[in-house]
């Protein structure tokens, strides 16, 4: 039978977490001082976990590959963070947030985890505000909310289009405070290259100092991987250039299972690709769908400029197909609808792989109300436009500027051109209710784990999950493990397990330099990305996936024969860093395709062309696939599938409809 034990507490859903908290073993303050915890990654999950654990008294070491903890890619999240505060008096509740998240995730997430997430969501807002995060406010001094995709309430807290930045800097300030107090030791510009297991438990890591190139051994009673997602397996994504899977992937090689690797989120509103030189894609926040209307021309191959197409010749296809949610359908639905229109020949722009996101009616609407508040009862058309622009600028100014910067077009005058792009990965290291992987003592938090978003994440839920895991979950759940470790003295890093792990890491570096091939790392990364996007992207089918697996295997062999890594290992060498990461992406890519091939249903972001309704909507197969696919690395590029059955007790599993 399955090796997977999700360790979900007994009892009714609403009481599981409360009961868990009051019964979980504690560690006394004196013992905490001698327990060491390693945190890899300094984003929302990593920074919040590290500061919370340090405040509790644990000795913490934090590692990040960037030059400062403040650079982690959580910073780029734009739109907001959900919390069931019901400040808007619109009927929100913990249960509704829980329900929306389970439904949004297309019934592929664990009920108990999601309920816990929803119930701590309100504490996150309290915590962040107390830490000085300047969230948006109304004139009365109270916090402001907006709505996001997949929900019918306003529960999203935000700070203009920079919510992730403000939350991350808040968490970072907490982290730096502990650094100042000496309870956290910070290792910036360090990359984790190996997990060290001793007698079946995770006991540390091997990290490379990216400036000197030296490998270092670090001991910890527990190790937390808070290393984000693996969207960069597609080469082009909205992730940062450095975002990578290496830490999580090395963990799978040491026994951690990888959950649902094929669940990737394609975000519907990104700036389209402009050419071969493109190095990354830029997201335009989902919050724009609050006010922007998405459309394409009704005529195929229409070459007129957007402003020349009259209203009646525009197809607001989301409003047409999904009248209940309109432009605010979940991301997977919106993305597929855009792809469907473009594939059918209705796309716009030079590439024809884009749709319009239009603010004209929002500008008019806001202009009208602003004019009224200014005491102008009969505003001219120009006044309406000017006032409307002011309001839109206040809400989305930085996003509009960014769009203009990148495309050279003014979105106040012309509709934005957008197209879906890889954004987030719901898959990740399999973890139990305690956030522990299948390796005792090795945890995964935030985007790095597979847990709470099922097959599709709703907007403004990633920030919520990262901070929930770090601030409010791990401080309790780690006690369950560490309370049994108080007798374990710090293990010397001369232990043979450290020596051999360091040797493995060094071996890979030496191997990379020894190839002296002819092609750059990026060359391989781009090819991998193309395979993944074409065959394991927004729509997948059996034939394509099988081809992809074969192509990736060939690519892997070629990579290890022909990659060129310049410079030396004992130096600051970004190419070497990239090479190691791409090597891991290639292996992960193969597993993603295997997982996508195995899951012959459509659910959330995973759309199998073989499994759709007559209207082209995703068709789930709950009988067969209501499980988490957790893959065990058996070495030599073979994997064994373990299934964690998903039981829905509080929610009746049903077809997802946003019509």
């Amino acid at each position, binding site marked *: 039978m399955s090796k997977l034990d999700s360790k979900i507490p007994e009892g009714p859903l609403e009481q599981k977490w409360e009961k868990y908290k009051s019964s979980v073993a504690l560690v006394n303050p004196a013992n905490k001082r001698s327990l060491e915890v390693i945190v890899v990654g300094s984003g929302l999950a990593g920074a919040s976990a590290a500061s919370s654990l340090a405040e509790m008294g644990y000795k913490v070491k934090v590692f990040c590959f960037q*030059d400062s903890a403040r650079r982690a890619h959580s910073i780029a999240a734009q739109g907001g963070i959900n919390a069931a505060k019901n400040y808007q008096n619109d009927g929100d509740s913990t249960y509704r947030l829980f329900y929306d998240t389970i439904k949004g995730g297309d019934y592929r997430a664990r009920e108990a985890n999601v309920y816990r997430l929803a119930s701590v969501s309100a504490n996150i807002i309290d915590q962040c505000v107390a830490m000085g995060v300047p969230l948006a406010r109304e004139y009365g001094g109270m916090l402001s909310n907006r709505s996001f995709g997949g929900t019918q309430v306003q529960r999203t807290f935000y700070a203009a289009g920079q919510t992730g930045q403000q939350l991350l800097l808040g968490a970072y300030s907490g982290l730096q405070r502990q650094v100042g107090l000496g309870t956290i030791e910070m290792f910036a510009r360090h990359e984790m290259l190996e997990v060290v297991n001793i007698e079946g438990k995770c006991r540390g890591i091997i990290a490379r100092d990216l400036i000197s190139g030296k490998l270092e051994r670090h001991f910890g009673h527990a190790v937390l991987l808070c290393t984000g997602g693996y969207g960069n397996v597609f080469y082009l994504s909205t992730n940062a250039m450095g975002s990578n899977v290496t830490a999580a992937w090395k963990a799978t090689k040491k026994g951690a299972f990888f959950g649902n690797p094929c669940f990737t989120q394609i975000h519907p509103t990104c700036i389209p690709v402009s050419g071969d*030189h493109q190095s990354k894609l830029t997201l335009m926040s989902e919050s724009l769908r609050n006010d922007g209307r998405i459309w394409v021309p009704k005529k195929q191959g229409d070459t007129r400029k957007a402003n020349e197409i009259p209203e009646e010749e525009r197809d607001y296809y989301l409003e047409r197909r999904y009248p209940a949610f309109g432009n605010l359908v979940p991301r997977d639905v919106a993305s597929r609808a855009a792809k469907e229109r473009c594939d059918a020949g209705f796309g716009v722009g030079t590439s024809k792989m884009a749709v319009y996101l239009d603010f004209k009616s929002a500008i008019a609407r806001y202009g009208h109300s602003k004019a009224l508040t200014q005491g102008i009862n009969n505003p001219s058309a120009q006044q309406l436009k000017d006032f409307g622009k002011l309001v839109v600028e206040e809400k989305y100014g930085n996003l509009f500027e960014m769009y203009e910067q990148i495309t050279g077009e003014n979105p106040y005058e012309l509709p934005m051109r957008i197209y879906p792009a890889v954004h987030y990965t719901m898959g990740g290291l399999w973890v139990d209710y305690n956030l522990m992987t299948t390796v005792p003592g090795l945890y995964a938090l935030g985007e790095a784990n597979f847990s709470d978003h099922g097959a599709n994440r709703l907007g403004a839920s990633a920030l919520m999950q990262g901070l929930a895991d770090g601030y409010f979950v791990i401080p309790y759940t780690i006690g369950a493990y560490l309370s049994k470790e108080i007798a374990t003295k710090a293990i010397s890093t001369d232990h043979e397990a450290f020596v051999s792990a360091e040797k493995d890491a060094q071996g890979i570096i030496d191997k990379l330099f020894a190839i002296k091939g002819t092609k750059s790392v990026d060359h391989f990364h781009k090819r991998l990305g193309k395979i993944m996007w074409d065959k394991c992207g927004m729509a997948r089918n059996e034939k394509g996936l099988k081809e992809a697996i074969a192509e990736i295997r060939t690519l892997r062999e070629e990579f290890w024969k022909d990659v060129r890594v310049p410079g030396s290992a004992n130096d600051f060498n970004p190419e070497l860093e990239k090479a190691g990461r791409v090597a891991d992406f290639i292996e992960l890519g193969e597993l993603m395709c295997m997982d996508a091939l195995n899951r012959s249903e459509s659910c959330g972001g995973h759309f199998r062309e073989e499994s759709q309704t007559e209207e082209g909507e995703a068709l789930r197969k709950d009988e067969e696939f209501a499980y988490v696919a957790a893959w065990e690395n058996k070495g030599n590029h073979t994997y064994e599938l373990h299934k964690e059955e998903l039981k829905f007790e509080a929610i009746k599993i049903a077809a997802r409809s946003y019509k």
Partner: protein
Amino acid sequence: MNLTLKIWRQKNDKETGKLVTYPVKDISPDMSFLEMFDVLNEELITKGDEPIAFDHDCREGICGMCSMFINGRPHGPKRGVTTCQLHMRSFKNGDTIVVEPWRAAAFPVIKDLTVDRSAFDRIISKGGFISVNTGNAQDANNIPIPKPDADASFEAAACIGCGACVATCKNSSAMLFVSAKVSQLALLPQGRVEATTRVKNMVAQMDEEGFGNCTNTGACEIECPKGISLENIARMNREYFVANIKS
């Protein structure tokens, strides 16, 4: 378009560096400045040369990692834009572009265009926070904050810590950076509790790191990609004087 790049190459912080000239061809105006560097690096790798090391990560203008001094200005010629968001349509065919690292004693060069900005982290760790442990918070709406204060605090908090202010300041002063954090927290009621010690400790660490002093030229405000205002420096001065009068 075709351009001539003069790029600072420096092996590490111990050796001295120099400007090296690289011609680049067929650059698309739709490329970002860093994508042009990608193209150049790809060429250098293929030729067997070492690529140019430069810091970058999010490439959407928010992480604050990219940092190039382009033709005498941090993040190049456009206002309100980081290097990663600067696009080649801001240049003309035939232009010569000089690219140097941030230069300040407090920002030692690591390699080529990469510098060490950990001084900023050390300043934050001296007081750029509110000392509230996880789990201590009251309901977020218990303290109403006037919208203008919340907005001003947010504007100060928009700082991305890139260091352009230091790079452009003729004195390598970090006051815009420090004052942005001091202001963000000083403007909020939660932050007032520790306002006195915060400003004193942060200024002390700023001095310790070897940043220069502010002479109010205002260059930082103009070059800041996030438009952090000089008002913040005045506010920090005020906070600092009051703090020192008080205790």
